[in-house]
């Protein structure tokens, strides 16, 4: 039985007129920034700025070329001052943009960080005093994606970038880096691997990498990518996802996503997912919820937000169509929000305001970026 809280979805804080899809969020200074992708492959990626937490009208502070999309943000201190970096995907090569004032953005490195195959930059992370950029040929969930490179620089404006790892961590079937998270224990990188299942790699202080999960956590191609990472209380939370797959040609059927918890000792359990026998033992989801929270359709965990006292909010968004071109967003359908107040032992569904494509935890609550026909909107969601 599904328990749905009866209160309505929160009202929109702000709207972004037009058809752009909000895919990245960050707070920088006294403003909130939204990176967007156009619904059509030849549209333009944009960066919107709105005062935060004061509120106010959103304004466009950057617009890319035709056939571009903004993919992620990171705030990194460069030459003594915080700088807002934005990664983009573009036909001529993904760009790394920088802004010190949050209003003017410009590229700080050659397109594709100097490599012609890097049409897609992002996600971004900060680790070990460096800005880390994932790079590849297409969106991580695009079946045609390849590359899976991880580059880093202590001074992005110097245009000196070094590889943090072998492409795909030495596995040609790792098609992309789908998520990055800097944790106290080191940088964590999650791959997309459509055939074998996602892998999770962690960097140690010496720069070496340890594979902490493989084979989609023993669910293989039914967990083809880890699409969301979040630091929980003493554990890493992993949300999985899958691209759209034409059912008629795919005997494996739809791939509903899971939520997995990995502790510091390397043991993992599913909070939500498919019970299974595994090389690590018999796994039964703690919350006794099936993959996709019981909804079998192909979907992605687009965000896991953590709050005080073990509160979790998991955003699951249905995947309804293939990626339109190299930089369009996959056809994303309705979202469902699931909240736990006990660290993932039980979840209750809460109303979702629409398709949530990005989310950000802030002291004021969780900001949900919602796509809509009449324009994107930002909603505030209570985290506890």
């Amino acid at each position: 039985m599904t328990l749905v809280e009866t209160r309505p979805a929160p009202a929109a804080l702000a709207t972004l007129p037009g058809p752009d899809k909000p895919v990245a969020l960050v707070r920088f200074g006294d403003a909130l920034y939204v990176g967007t992708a156009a619904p059509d492959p030849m549209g333009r990626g944009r960066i919107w700025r709105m005062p935060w937490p004061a509120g106010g009208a959103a304004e466009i502070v950057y617009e890319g070329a035709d056939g571009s999309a903004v993919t992620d943000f990171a705030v990194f201190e460069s030459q003594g001052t915080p700088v807002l970096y934005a990664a983009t995907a573009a036909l001529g090569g993904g760009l790394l943009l920088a802004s010190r004032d949050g209003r003017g953005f410009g590229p700080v490195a050659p397109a594709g960080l100097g490599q012609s195959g890097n049409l897609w930059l992002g996600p971004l992370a900060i680790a070990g005093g460096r800005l880390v950029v994932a790079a590849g040929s297409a969106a991580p969930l695009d079946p045609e994606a390849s590359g899976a490179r991880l580059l880093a620089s202590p001074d992005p404006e110097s245009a000196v970038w070094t590889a943090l790892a072998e492409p795909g961590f030495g596995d040609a079937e790792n098609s992309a880096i789908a998520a990055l998270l800097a944790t106290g224990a080191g940088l964590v990188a999650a791959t997309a691997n459509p055939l074998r299942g996602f892998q999770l790699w962690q960097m140690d202080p010496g720069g070496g990498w340890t594979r902490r999960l493989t084979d989609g956590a023993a669910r293989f191609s039914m967990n083809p990518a880890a699409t969301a990472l979040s630091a929980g209380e003493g554990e890493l939370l992993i949300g999985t996802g899958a691209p759209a797959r034409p059912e008629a040609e795919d005997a494996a059927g739809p791939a509903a996503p899971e939520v997995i918890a990995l502790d510091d000792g390397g043991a993992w359990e599913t909070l939500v997912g498919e019970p299974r026998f595994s090389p690590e033992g018999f796994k039964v989801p703690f919350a006794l919820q099936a993959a996709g929270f019981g909804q079998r359709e192909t979907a992605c965990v687009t965000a896991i937000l953590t709050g005080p006292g073990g509160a979790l909010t998991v955003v699951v968004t249905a995947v309804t169509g293939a990626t339109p071109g190299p930089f369009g967003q996959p056809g994303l359908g309705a979202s469902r929000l699931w909240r736990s107040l006990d660290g993932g032992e039980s979840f209750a569904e809460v109303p979702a305001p629409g398709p949530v494509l990005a989310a950000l935890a802030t002291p004021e609550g969780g900001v949900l970026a919602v796509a809509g026909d009449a324009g994107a909107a930002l909603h505030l969601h209570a985290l506890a």
Partner: protein
Amino acid sequence: MPEPLFILCPGRSFSSVVAAVIGQHPRCYGLPELNLFLGETIGDAWSNDATRGGYPMQGLKRTIAELNYGAQTDETVDEAIAWIEARKDWTARRMMDHIQDRAGDRILVDKSPANVVHPRVLGGVVKAFPKANYLQLMRHPRSRGKSQMKHWEKTQARRVMDGTAKPPPDAEFKWQGTHAMISALGPKLALGQLMWIRGEDLMRDLKFYLPQICDWLGIPCDDAAMAEMMKPEASPYACLGPAKAKYGANTDFLKDPSLDFDRLASIPDPSLDGPLDWAPEELFSDATRQQAYRFGYR
């Protein structure tokens, strides 16, 4: 009484040995192939074309001989046949209930290949036992296909000359279609009611995976239980039966049911790539490959 365990897979998927191993757990009772669900009644199943063609009810005869008459001899098999003939109007469920009564408070372990010959048959199993546990047993499509073709050559090739041989099976379709049918059960069942395991993993490391299966079934897996499960040959059905009901499981298993741990440890991992061993001009289809990736086969 406990709910039964149904092991679901196309033939040649290690099911005889897996069912016998689990069936030797002190809280379980391993059955030969009963093939009860081919019709609405035992009489229907008994006269079903599939029964005549490939699923003879020798396992049922042996089971009734063993449980009703205490032994498997030609005489008790005759008695069993007469007993079954008198109950041809029974449903499969009623027959299973009878077997359960005789076996006592133990989990019946059934691996009848006929249960997955058609979605209607599998649906009948689930309808009769909506709360049973179902284990989907996997084997790599290449090694399973090779085994199936080898079996066909062994049993049918000599009939080719006189024109009575069955046509060679479509080994790839059997694997893909059967597993798609079994997987489709998942959404209709409760969380964890249908589980899957790769037979190769299980057979290579029984002592690691059997406790997981026992945990799933809610039965203990102490040293004594593990020791019993390591002796599938101790099952009354793990041997050739009397002349009137000789079979009821894979013939090779019936002839040599003991576990050969060295052989099991070296079960190979074949590849999905390359020509089919039984049809060198063909490759595995995309549908088969996608299905195989789902279970970690490469």
